């Protein structure tokens, strides 16, 4: 079929609705291998928007591309854990075997090879996505074997020889991913979780009573910010509107986190129960799961669970024969943008826009998706909602600490013997955690992902809870052999690549932070640079528009505070009188080559003979 017809068909599939731009673009990317200028023009015409608006969306998401990609796209996970596990060697192995440079596409358009930020497999690093199929625990040898198979024409899904545990072996997933559940708590990973029990209990109550139960349970959002969930429901319900939305944030993009992957694999029904309860509570008939593009391999399975629920009367019209309670859920696939984990950016993305955060106020509970009151919670929170309705607020609030009720799922990875998912009551100290995961000789525990807190040895007594180390659950453990500045540099690289670019401090300031950290690493910095880093960090923190910008400098400030010796050991006195970073030899190299002569001043022998200089 010619391009024009294909593009029009893709648009038509989603009713020429510009709010479904992401779906249209995914369709085109998958069928055409790119979204070129011509396609963008047709999409703009069909969806009744401007070409530059389409271009804005295409160029925002890293999984969309204007240039032709290979039929098979290999994306090697490049988060810090994978780097430490050898992702660079994996990428080179692929590159050599396939004859494709990293970041490039083969001339016959068969293969593309690139790095991608955390794909949510840090517990089985290094890993890669090959046309969306996760290939985990790679070694350079297995990468070479994989490449050889791909060259032979083996399709990516057939690369999976042995499927993982639990539903990873389900015929609609068939993935080699392992759940790595290391510790089951009583709320989410307990084996007695039953389908629809929470929903049935909730439907016996009036909406305000459901909200009261959630408020009484003390449940706070599990994404990291810790906003009281029941209160969020109440605010959404109390905003006057003809329509309300329930949105699940399944875009866990925080480097080193993967616990939602396990919930989506093993507790899909519990999640959908939770969303349906929220719909009942706030008066909504439409829900959306925003599933990160990296988890596309779970999509067919999740769609099948939704279909089953529809036929079982748990979704759709008159749920559980309750008149006037209609609710259905659709799944929206993201396309590789960390910022979309921020709730208002996620809403922008759902609306078919660039995934940029919105101005707040108004908050989503007042004006969210399509301008309607919207509850956005993450996977874990909705699962908790269902369990609270099943077992009661009192049961839930008896677990955890005074301010942080219930259990928390932690994704723990890095330098430890037992990486994986742990369900623990709130209040665990970092030391206890390290014993639990089998970590020895630890120097840094990064709590809360790239923008979280860098906890050094002296602070291992701190507790994981809302009032101390609040976290969405990403915990990375780094041993004594890891380079602190390398980790800081990685985080800043991550933030500068994932910044949406909307506001000045985050777009520009983070670039300047990284430049200076590089200078420190090269031994070119002096004491004044530490003041500069602190100063710049403060401006970025105080003036950024959303949490990405305001948390990006945390790693800089934390590392200066926790590891002052690392910084001071990199400071060197310069004796040549030049400013730090200026290298006259480097500055002259190209010139010498072009002019085919040496410098009269800076090539010493020559200069001395002539007696030059002032």
């Amino acid at each position, binding site marked *: 079929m010619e391009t024009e017809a294909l593009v029009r068909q893709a648009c038509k599939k989603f009713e020429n609705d510009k709010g479904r731009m992401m779906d249209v673009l995914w369709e085109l990317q998958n069928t055409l291998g790119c979204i070129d*200028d011509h396609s963008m023009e047709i999409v703009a015409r069909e969806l009744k928007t*401007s*070409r*530059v*608006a389409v*271009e*804005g969306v295409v*160029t*925002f998401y890293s999984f969309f591309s204007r240039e032709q990609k290979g039929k098979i796209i290999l994306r090697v996970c490049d988060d810090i854990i994978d780097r430490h596990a050898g992702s660079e060697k994996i990428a080179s192995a692929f590159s050599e075997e396939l004859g494709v440079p990293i970041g490039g596409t083969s001339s016959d358009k068969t293969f593309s090879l690139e790095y991608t930020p955390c794909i949510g497999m840090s517990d089985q690093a290094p890993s890669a996505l090959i046309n969306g199929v996760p290939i985990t625990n790679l070694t350079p040898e297995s990468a070479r074997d994989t490449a050889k198979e791909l060259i032979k024409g083996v399709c990516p899904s057939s690369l999976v020889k042995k499927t993982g545990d639990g539903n990873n072996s389900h015929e609609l997933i068939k993935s080699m991913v392992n759940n790595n559940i290391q510790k089951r708590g009583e709320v989410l990973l307990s084996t007695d979780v039953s389908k629809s029990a929470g929903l049935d209990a909730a439907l016996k109550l009036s909406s305000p009573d459901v909200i009261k139960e959630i408020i009484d349970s003390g449940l706070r959002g599990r994404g990291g910010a810790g906003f009281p969930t029941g209160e969020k429901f109440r*605010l959404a*319900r*109390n*905003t*006057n509107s*003809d329509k309300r939305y329930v949105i699940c944030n399944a875009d866990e993009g925080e480097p080193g986190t993967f616990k939602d992957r396990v919930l989506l694999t093993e507790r899909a029904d519990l999640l959908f129960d939770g969303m349906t309860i929220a719909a009942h509570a706030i*008066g909504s008939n439409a829900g959306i799961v925003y599933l990160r593009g990296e988890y596309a391999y779970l999509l067919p399975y999740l769609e099948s669970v939704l279909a089953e629920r529809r036929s079982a009367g748990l979704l759709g019209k008159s749920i559980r024969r309750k008149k*006037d*309670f209609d609710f259905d859920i659709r799944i929206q696939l993201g396309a590789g*943008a960390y910022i979309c984990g921020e709730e208002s950016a996620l809403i922008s993305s759902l609306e078919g826009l*660039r995934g940029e955060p919105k*101005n707040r*106020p108004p908050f989503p509970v*007042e004006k969210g998706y399509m301008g309607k009151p919207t509850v956005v919670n993450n996977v874990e929170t909705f699962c908790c909602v269902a369990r609270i309705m099943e077992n009661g607020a009192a049961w839930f609030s008896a677990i955890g600490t005074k301010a942080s009720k219930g259990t928390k799922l932690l994704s723990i990875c890095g330098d430890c013997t037992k990486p994986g998912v742990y369900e623990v009551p709130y209040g665990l100290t970092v030391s206890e955690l390290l014993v639990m995961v089998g970590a020895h000789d630890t120097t840094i525990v990064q709590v809360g992902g790239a923008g979280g807190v860098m906890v050094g040895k002296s602070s291992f007594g701190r507790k994981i809870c809302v009032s101390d180390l609040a976290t969405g659950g990403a915990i990375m453990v780094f041993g004594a052999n890891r380079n602190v500045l390398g980790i800081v540099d990685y985080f800043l690289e991550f933030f*500068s*690549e*994932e*910044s*949406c*670019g*909307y*506001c*000045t*401090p985050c*777009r*520009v*300031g983070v*670039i*300047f932070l990284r*430049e200076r950290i590089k200078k420190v690493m090269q031994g070119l910095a002096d004491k004044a640079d530490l003041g*500069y880093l602190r*100063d*710049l960090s403060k*401006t970025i923190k*105080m*003036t*950024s*528009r959303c949490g990405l910008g305001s948390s990006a400098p945390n790693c800089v400030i934390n590392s200066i505070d926790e590891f002052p010796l690392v910084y001071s050991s990199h400071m060197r006195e310069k004796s040549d009188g030049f400013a730090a970073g200026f290298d006259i030899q480097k500055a002259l190299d190209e010139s010498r080559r072009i002019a085919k002569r040496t410098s009269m001043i800076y090539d010493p022998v020559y200069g001395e003979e002539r007696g030059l200089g002032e």
Partner: protein
Amino acid sequence: MTPFTGKNEALENKMIGDDIVFKIDGVDVRGRIGQTIMEAADDAGIHIPRLCDVEGLDPQGSCRVCTVKINGRTAASCTQPVADGINVENRTPEIQEYRRDLVRMLFHEGNHLCPACEASGRCELQALGTDFGILQPDKYPYLQPSRPVDASHHDVMLDTNRCIRCGRCIRASAHVDHKNVFGYVGRGINKQVGVNGTDLAHTNAAVTDKAMEIGICPVGCIIQKRVGFFAPIGARRFDKEPITGKK
């Protein structure tokens, strides 16, 4: 489900349009519910520096130069609504230092070679630099972008190396001209203003558009051809009065 009417807690006691009183740097300022802090300050004759916001267009809140502290928390005053009794810090040394840094960041992000720029003297970035007394523009490294200049259009040219991503042209074109000639493309440091076609000549842009009007682009990114240097040095906009509006 039975519909019900809820109340907006934030507005429970006050309705849109009601008068309220709040403080800016300790001075009482009257405002109305529904206004932003910047609007109320403008009405009261108190200047808050800004770049992405301009009279007649919706606020965007992206340059962050109008950052203020409200009861101890920072926010962009162009998008933050006023509320009764709030305490706003505007010209404190701390806030001014943040703003100075932000202006510097924009200055270092692009190629702002004032002597070679037609917008010099009417450039808001330049005027703010002067106003903030930025004497040492070497705090940050210069990023020195090298994007091609788009001179395809008969009457207007674009040098995005000078763009500060304020989006004023985008909003003017979308909301006033109803044309969508401009839009953001890319992300992070590569976020830029793109045009609705292969280049500006292949759009329906016209020099008479609001988006092309002098004063919409705060810097020298959008330049009208054949009218360059229309005001001599000494008679340019900010030669006559500083950007704060007060001498």
